[in-house]
C-alpha cells in the first residue's frame, strides 16, 4: 500500500491470553533492530492477511515507550464484529510474520498539563498503559479511573494497581460501582487535563459533563475506538478510477476500495483523523455514517463519506475515487 505510514516488518514474539476476552500480542522487528520510539497514546495499524482478505485494524501500543525492543497490543475478542479480532485470536501465533505501520499518535498527552486525569472504560485502558508508563518515568502527576464489567474482565487492573497503587481507582459494573463524575471533575486543580477512552456512550457522557462544569474544550482529550461495523453488502462506482466494486457484509468500504487497487490516504481507520474523507458524486439511498470526523451538516448533505467506518444502503452510490 503506497499511502498511510511507513511499514515495519515484524514477527510475533509472544501471544499471551490475559482474560476470557483479551489477548496480548508482542511484536519484534524481523531484522533484530529496535522498533521506532513512540509516545504514549500512539497506535499502529496491523495488517491481517486472512485468506483472500486483508484487514487493517488500528490498536493502541500499550508497552512502555521507553522499551522499543518490542511493541505490545491487546485485542478484545468481538464475536459479532467483522472478524479482525477473531483472526487475531484464532490465527496469530508466535513466529508469524506480519506487517504493521509506524506508530501514529492521535491521542497525545498535553505536556503542559499540571495533572493528567484519565478515565478508561473496558478495552479503552490500552492507550493509558503507555501514557502512565511515560508519565511515571518523568515523575508526572496522573490519576486513572478505570471502569470494567467485572474484576476478572478488568484487563491489567492488577498490573496498574501494583505499579501505581492509589493513583489507580477501579469501578466494577457488577458491584454497581460508578465514577462520581461530577464530584471528580469539580475537584481538580487548575491546569488539569482530562483524557477519556472507552465506549462511545462513556466518551459522550464525560465530554458533556466536563463542558457543563466549565472545562475548556482544549483540556478535554478523547479517543473513540470506533471499529468498522458489519452491514448489508452494497455496490459502489469509483468515478475517478472507473471501477465498480462490491462491499461485502464483513468488509469496510475502505477495504473494498483498497482491494480494487485504489489507495486513498488513511491513518486511523477509525473515523477520527479525516485522511480518507471522500466526496460523493451521486447517490440514491441512505448513508450509515459512523465517523467522528464529519460535521452533522456534512452527514445531512450527502456530499461526503468516511469510507473507513461508514456504509451505505440503497440503489446506487458513486464516489470521487
Amino acid at each position: 500500500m503506497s499511502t498511510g505510514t511507513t511499514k515495519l516488518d515484524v514477527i510475533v514474539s509472544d501471544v499471551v491470553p490475559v482474560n476470557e476476552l483479551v489477548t496480548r500480542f508482542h511484536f519484534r522487528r524481523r531484522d533484530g533492530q529496535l522498533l521506532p520510539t513512540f509516545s504514549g497514546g500512539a497506535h499502529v495499524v496491523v495488517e491481517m492477511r486472512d485468506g483472500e482478505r486483508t484487514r487493517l485494524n488500528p490498536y493502541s501500543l500499550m508497552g512502555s515507550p521507553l522499551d522499543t525492543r518490542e511493541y505490545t497490543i491487546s485485542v478484545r475478542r468481538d464475536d459479532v464484529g467483522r472478524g479482525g479480532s477473531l483472526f487475531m485470536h484464532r490465527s496469530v501465533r508466535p513466529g508469524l510474520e506480519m506487517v504493521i505501520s509506524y506508530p501514529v499518535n492521535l491521542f497525545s498527552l498535553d505536556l503542559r498539563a499540571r495533572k493528567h486525569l484519565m478515565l478508561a472504560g473496558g478495552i479503552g485502558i490500552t492507550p493509558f498503559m503507555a501514557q502512565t508508563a511515560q508519565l511515571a518515568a518523568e515523575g508526572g502527576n496522573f490519576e486513572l479511573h478505570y471502569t470494567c464489567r467485572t474484576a476478572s474482565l478488568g484487563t491489567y487492573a492488577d498490573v496498574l494497581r501494583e505499579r501505581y497503587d492509589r493513583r489507580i481507582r477501579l469501578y466494577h459494573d457488577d458491584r454497581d460501582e460508578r465514577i462520581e463524575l461530577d464530584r471528580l471533575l469539580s475537584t481538580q486543580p487548575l491546569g488539569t487535563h482530562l483524557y477519556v477512552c472507552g465506549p462511545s456512550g462513556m466518551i459522550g457522557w464525560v465530554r458533556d459533563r466536563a463542558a457543563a462544569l466549565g472545562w475548556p474544550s482544549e483540556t478535554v482529550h478523547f479517543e473513540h475506538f470506533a471499529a468498522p461495523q458489519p452491514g448489508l453488502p452494497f455496490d459502489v462506482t469509483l468515478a475517478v478510477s472507473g471501477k465498480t466494486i462490491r462491499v461485502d457484509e464483513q468488509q469496510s468500504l475502505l477495504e473494498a476500495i483498497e482491494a480494487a487497487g485504489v489507495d486513498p490516504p488513511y491513518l486511523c481507520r477509525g473515523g477520527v483523523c479525516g485522511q480518507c474523507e471522500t466526496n460523493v458524486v451521486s447517490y440514491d439511498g441512505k448513508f450509515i455514517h459512523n465517523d467522528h470526523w464529519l460535521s452533522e451538516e456534512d452527514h445531512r448533505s450527502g456530499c461526503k463519506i468516511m469510507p473507513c467506518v461508514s456504509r451505505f444502503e440503497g440503489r446506487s452510490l458513486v464516489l470521487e475515487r
Partner: protein
Amino acid sequence: MGITFRKETFRDDFTFKNSPEHIRRFPFPFHEDAYMYAVNIEPHVVGPKGSVLENLIDVDEHYVAEMQDRALVLAEDPLRCQSLPHMTLAGWDLLELLMEQQALGYPEHFTLSRDGDRWRWINRPLGIDDTFTFGDTSTLPYGPMEYITRQSQGDFCILDQRDGNLWMDAGMVTTQADWSLDFDIGMNFFEWHAPVPLAHEKGIFVRALKFLTNIQQGKPARRLNWTMTINPRLDTSPENYHKWGPDRTTVTPENVGDKVHLRVELQSFWRLPRSNGIVFPIRCYLIKMDELVTQPKWARRLHRVIRDLPDELANYKGLTRYRPTLVEWLSKLDDGSPTSPGFGPD
C-alpha cells in the same frame, strides 16, 4: 577525506565565500522563470550525491564558522534560544535526531555511541567529546535542544501539536530572515504567519497546517523558501535591524555582484517520536551574485524571476530599494535564450 571547513566570517569583514563545488551544489530555488507562492512541499528523502540533499541533515564547509557565529549571537542575546517548560522532552527528541543524522552522514566528523541511556557524543570539528545520560538534563552543559543546536547548522523551531494546531514553543533562531523567536514564542501557526502577504487569500496556510499536523514519524517532508540579503549576514533578525537594515542602501551597480546574496532556506518537517511534536529545521544557504552567475542558466532565470516578481512580494522580501539596480545588472547576463526545466545548473 571529509569536509575542509572554511575559516570565514558572517559579519564585520564578511569573508564568507563558497568554493566552486559548493556553488554547484547550491539549492537554487526556481524551477521555472517565474515565482509565486505554492504549497511546494515534497517528501524529504535522500537526493543525488554531491547535492545538499545527499544527507537529510546537511553539514557543509561553513559548519565551523556558522557555529562560531551562532555562539557570538547567543552571547549578545540569549533570548534567541528559548524552550517553554513542557518542551524539554521534544528537546531530547531533537538531540537524538541530529546526533543520529550527523553521525550517519559524516562518520569521519561525528560519532555517537550508546549503551542504554549512557551516550557518548564526539564532534571532531568543534573538539567536543561528551558522555551524558539521555533524558537527564543535569548531565549536559545546556538543555538538550540548546546543546545540540549549538552544534548543528540552521535554525530550529520545535512545534507542539495540540488542539489541531501547531505552537511555536521552543527554538534556536540565530540565522533568520527577519523574524524573531522571542516575538513568536507561544504563538500558533496562524498567528506567526499573519504578516505574510497574499498567501492567506489563497488558503495556503489552512492547507499547509493540515499537511503538517499529519506528518508521520519516519516520513519527513521539505520545502524551499528564499529571499535576498545584502552582505553574507546569517543574523538578519528584527533585533539587529539597525545593523543590517541600512546595508540595503549601499547597493550600487559596481558592487551588486559582491554584496547582493540569494538566501535560500531548506525547510524540513519531522515528527518527533517521544513528544509527538514537530521539528522544523530552517537551513540557510547564501550565495553572492558573482558566484551564482557562474552558472549561466541561473543568471538568466534569476533575472526573469526578480524582474517579474509581484510588488507585494518584493516588498515583503525587502528587495524594493535595490531591485532596479539588481535587475539592470542581471539583465546584461540574460540573452533571452530559453532555460532548461528543473533547478540544477546546465
